[in-house]
């Protein structure tokens, strides 16, 4: 598996990755096709999958109830495969805004939304959002009004979290596809609001 493009010498860690992988393949623990398939599988998972869940919840009150009761089952109901995911969906309301973090490492609903952004895994986000969420959200350009409470959810164990943002005003009669296009990854983490129509 050589990289295309300009030659760059391997870093110590890239050397470790190649060596570990080749040893495990030689021992029959994993195979190269399996690794490639897993890479492609992860690449295929992205925020648009979560956006579909949100758009359905915005248009179907029964689905929204089921989503809040059992996030994983509700994803599977839409045909989204989410292996090993135990999802809890937190609903934003006019009184409460939710935001997700993993202060201990980088837990994220990756099987639904794909790989998390670097900043979510950063020391600064993980240290500060649990202690000063309003200031951190302001750095993302998100102002939470004084009358709205903020709840920070720290994924410390087996559950994973996603925010169900509020449906933007001015979207009456929109179909799910149009609504899903307003739902950003950052609004499902809780550091941003969905796009305006």
């Amino acid at each position, binding site marked *: 598996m050589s990289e295309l493009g300009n030659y760059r010498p391997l870093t110590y860690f890239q050397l470790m990755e190649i060596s570990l992988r080749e040893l495990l393949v030689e021992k029959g623990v994993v195979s190269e096709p399996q690794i490639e398939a897993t890479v492609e599988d992860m690449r295929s998972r992205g925020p648009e999958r979560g956006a579909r869940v949100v758009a359905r919840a915005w248009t179907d009150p029964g689905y929204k109830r089921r989503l809040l009761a059992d996030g994983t089952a509700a994803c599977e109901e839409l045909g989204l495969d989410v292996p090993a995911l135990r999802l809890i969906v937190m609903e934003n309301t006019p009184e409460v805004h939710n935001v997700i973090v993993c*202060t201990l490492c980088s837990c994220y609903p990756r099987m639904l939304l794909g790989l998390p952004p670097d900043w979510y895994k950063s020391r600064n986000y993980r240290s500060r959002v649990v202690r000063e969420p309003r200031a951190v959200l302001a750095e993302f350009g998100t102002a939470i009004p004084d009358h709205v409470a903020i*709840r*920070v959810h*720290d994924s410390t*164990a087996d*559950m994973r979290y996603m925010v169900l943002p509020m449906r933007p005003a001015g979207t009456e009669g929109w179909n799910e596809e149009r609504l899903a296009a307003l739902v950003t990854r950052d609004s499902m983490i809780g550091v941003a609001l969905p796009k305006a129509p």
Partner: protein
Amino acid sequence: MALEARFRPGDRVRVMNAYPLGHVRTPCYIRGHTGVVERLCGSFANPEELAQMRSGLPARPLYRVRFLQAEVWHDYRGRPDDAVEIEIFQHWLEKA
């Protein structure tokens, strides 16, 4: 066979104020603090034991506990009802 759940939603619980060695998923910032059980998530294998290549069984109850931010941080800037909600294993909790 899982251990029996000792707490219910609405119970006030305090997080044990201990700092043992090993892999622990109870964040340092919440140890010694008191909150309210928001829900029982289910029973799961103990990550402290799984980290040491042991089974982590029997599974034990995992709770989501809600803490008021103003009580957790002495310098918290926000609303008095702002909260942080954390999953904590039963063996780290005592009735408050």
